[in-house]
C-alpha cells in the first residue's frame, strides 16, 4: 500500500485506533480514568502555560535540545553514508525516557494526582520517573520484573536513592511485560490518587499518542538541526524499537517526507530463527495485549511468549500500535539485529567515537552500520542514540567473562 496523503495529525482516531491497531482494551474500571486522562491531556496540550512550563523543563532540567553529532571517523571507516547521531544519551538521566516522564509528571501534577507509578525494564524509565517524582515531591512506586532487577541493579539503586519504592514483580516471565501488568493492577486499585506513567508508546489510548507527542521533540529538533548542520534532511532514519517510543519520537515529524527512509530495529536476540528474540514486528502476529491491538509474540494458543534480548529495554513481546500501522502501510521498515551484532556496534562506537551507547541504542547503530555500506558517502543516516551505556557495564563485562 503506497501512502500518498499526509499522515501527521491524522492518527489515531478519536478512540485511539491506528487503522486496525491501538484502541482501548481494558477492564471497565479503567475506562473512565482513561477518559479523564484523555480529556486532561487534550486540555493541557492546548494550554499555553502548560506548554511553556514543559518547554522550560525540557530546556533547563533535561538539557534540550540534545545535540546532533556527525560520527565522521566511524562513517569513514565504514566507507558508506555519513552517520549522524541524535544524542538523547546526553539528556539528564541518560536516555530519551525523560522527555516523556517530564511531560506526564507535569500532567499528573495539574490533574492533582500525588502518587505516580511506573513500569520499567532496563530501569531507564523507572529512573526517569523517580527523578521527576523527586523533583515534584510526588510519591513514586516503580514495578520491575525480578529478572530485570538482577540484570540492572545499578538502576535499581538509583531509583531507591531518588526516593522511589521499587517493587519486584515475581509473576509470569518476571520481566517488562509482567511489570506492566502489575502497574496496571496497582492503577486499577488506586486510581483515585494515582497517575500511571507508561514508559513507551504502548498501553491503551491515549498513551500511545500522548507518549509519541512528548517524544516527538526528538524529531522536531532534528529537522531544524539537520538543516543547520548538514544543509539538508537525512536520507534515512534509524532507531531501535522496544515499545517504540524513541523510534516514533524521531520518526513522527518525518512521516510526511516520503524521501526519508525509515528503519525501526528490533532485537533479534540469539537470531530470529532460534525463536529467542524480541521482534514482534519482524516475527510476530497481531493480537491484543496491554490495552491495545498490535503485533505480539505469542504461541498458537494466544499465550504471550517469553522474549530474549541482551538489552532489557527491548525485551518486550509487544510494540506500540502506531509502529504496527506504519509497518502494514509500508511507510516504515522494520528489521532486527542480534545480540552479537549489537555488541559489536557497542564496541565500535565506544572505540572509534568515544561514545558508550546503551545496548538498546546499539541495535540501531548495528543496523545503521550495515545500511551505511549500501549507501554513498554523500548520503546521510540519522541514528537515534536513545541512551548511554553506563547502565550496561555489568552486562557487557559479564559477557566477556569479567566480573566488576
Amino acid at each position: 500500500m503506497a501512502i500518498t496523503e499526509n499522515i501527521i495529525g491524522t492518527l489515531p482516531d478519536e478512540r485511539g485506533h491506528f487503522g486496525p491497531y491501538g484502541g482501548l482494551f481494558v477492564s471497565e474500571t479503567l475506562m473512565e480514568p482513561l477518559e479523564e486522562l484523555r480529556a486532561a491531556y487534550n486540555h493541557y496540550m492546548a494550554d499555553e502555560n502548560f506548554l511553556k512550563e514543559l518547554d522550560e523543563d525540557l530546556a533547563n532540567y533535561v538539557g534540550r535540545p540534545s545535540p546532533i553529532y556527525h560520527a565522521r571517523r566511524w562513517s569513514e571507516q565504514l566507507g558508506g553514508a555519513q552517520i549522524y547521531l541524535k544524542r538523547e544519551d546526553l539528556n539528564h538521566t541518560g536516555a530519551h525516557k525523560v522527555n516523556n516522564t517530564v511531560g506526564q509528571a507535569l500532567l499528573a501534577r495539574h490533574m492533582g494526582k500525588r502518587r505516580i507509578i511506573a513500569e520499567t525494564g532496563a530501569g531507564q524509565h523507572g529512573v526517569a520517573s523517580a527523578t521527576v517524582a523527586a523533583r515534584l515531591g510526588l510519591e513514586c512506586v516503580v514495578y520491575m520484573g525480578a529478572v530485570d532487577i538482577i540484570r540492572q541493579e545499578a538502576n535499581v539503586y538509583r531509583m531507591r536513592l531518588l526516593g522511589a519504592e521499587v517493587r519486584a514483580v515475581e509473576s509470569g516471565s518476571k520481566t517488562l511485560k509482567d511489570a506492566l501488568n502489575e502497574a496496571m493492577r496497582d492503577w486499577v486499585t488506586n486510581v483515585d490518587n494515582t497517575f500511571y506513567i507508561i514508559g513507551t508508546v504502548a498501553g491503551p489510548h491515549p498513551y500511545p499518542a500522548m507518549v509519541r507527542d512528548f517524544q516527538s521533540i526528538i524529531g522536531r529538533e532534528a529537522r531544524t538541526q539537520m538543516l543547520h548542520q548538514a544543509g539538508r534532511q537525512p536520507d534515512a532514519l534509524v532507531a531501535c524499537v522496544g515499545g517504540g517510543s524513541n523510534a516514533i519520537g524521531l520518526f513522527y515529524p518525518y512521516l510526511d517526507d516520503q524521501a526519508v527512509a525509515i528503519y525501526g530495529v528490533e532485537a533479534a536476540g540469539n537470531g530470529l530463527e532460534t525463536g529467542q528474540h524480541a521482534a514482534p514486528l519482524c516475527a510476530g502476529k497481531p493480537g491484543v495485549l496491554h490495552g491495545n491491538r498490535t503485533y505480539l509474540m505469542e504461541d498458537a494458543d494466544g499465550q504471550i511468549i517469553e522474549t530474549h534480548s541482551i538489552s532489557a529495554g527491548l525485551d518486550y513481546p509487544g510494540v506500540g500500535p502506531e509502529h504496527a500501522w506504519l509497518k502494514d502501510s509500508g511507510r516504515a521498515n522494520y528489521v532486527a539485529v542480534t545480540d552479537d551484532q549489537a555488541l559489536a556496534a557497542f564496541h565500535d562506537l565506544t572505540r572509534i567515537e568515544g561514545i558508550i551507547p546503551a545496548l538498546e541504542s546499539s541495535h540501531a547503530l548495528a543496523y545503521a552500520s550495515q545500511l551505511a555500506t549500501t549507501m554513498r558517502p554523500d548520503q546521510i543516516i540519522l541514528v537515534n542514540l536513545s541512551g548511554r551505556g553506563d547502565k550496561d557495564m555489568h552486562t557487557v563485562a559479564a559477557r566477556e567473562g569479567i566480573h566488576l
Partner: protein
Amino acid sequence: MSLISRKFAHLKAQGKKALIPFITAGDPIPEITVDLMHDLVAAGADLIELGVPFSDPMADGPVIQRASERALEYHVSLRDVLDMVSQFRQLDIETPVILMGYLNPIEVMGYEHFADRAADAGVDGLLIVDIPPEEGEELQRIFKAQSIDQIFLVAPTSTPDRIQRICDVSGGFVYYVSVKGVTGANHLDLSSMEHKLAEIRSRTDLPVGVGFGIKDAQTAAAVSRLADAVVVGSALVSRIEALADEPEKIGASLREVISSMRQAMDKVD
C-alpha cells in the same frame, strides 16, 4: 430465552438468588476440572464461571494469576477449555456455563470459529475482561448469531452514560465489580454497592450479579440481599491452591464452601 435467562427466571420464581462459583480451567491439573464443575453444582451452584487461562491476566489478583500459571504449566488452551465444557455437558445440560477470560486467545482462534465451537460445546455466556462495549461490536454480532450471552462488567468508576451503554449490549446478566481493584481484593463496600445497583436496575431489567471480594458465607449472604447473583472466585481458587498437591481433596473442599454459602444465602429472606 437463553439458558442463563431461564435459570434466573426459575430462581426468581423460587425466591432464590444465584450462586456462581469461578474456577480456572485446568487448575491445578486439567483432569479434574470437569469433576470439580459437577461438584460445584452438587453443592448448590446455579451457574458456573470457568476461567480460560491466560499468560497476562491483567485484571486478576495474585490468587487467580497463579491459577492461570498452574493451568498453563499443562498448556491448557482455549480449545481444551471448550472440550471440558463439552464433557461437562454429557452429564449436565441445565447448568449454564460462562467462560471468563481475556481477548487474545479468542483473537488467535478467530471470532467466528470460536463462537461456532463455543456454541457446539454448550457455552452459554462469555465474559471477556479486556473488551469494553466500544471495541466489541463485531464480537457482539457474532455471539448474538450463536445465541451466546455476552456479559459485561460495570465498575464503581462507571458513569451513568457508560452504565446505560453497557446495559444496552449485555446479555444474561449484568456483572457489577464491587471494588476498584483486581480479583481477590477484599474491601467490599456494601453501601456504595447498594447505590450503584440501584443505578443499574434503573436502566435494565436484566438480573444483576456482584463479584470481586466475596470471600465467605457471610459476605455472600450480605451481597445476595442486594443482588440477583453472587460470584465467588478467589475464595475457591485459594482452596484449590492450598490443595494443589492433593487434588483428590479439592472437590470436597469446594463443596464445603459452596454449600455453606448456599445455606447462608437461602436463609436470607
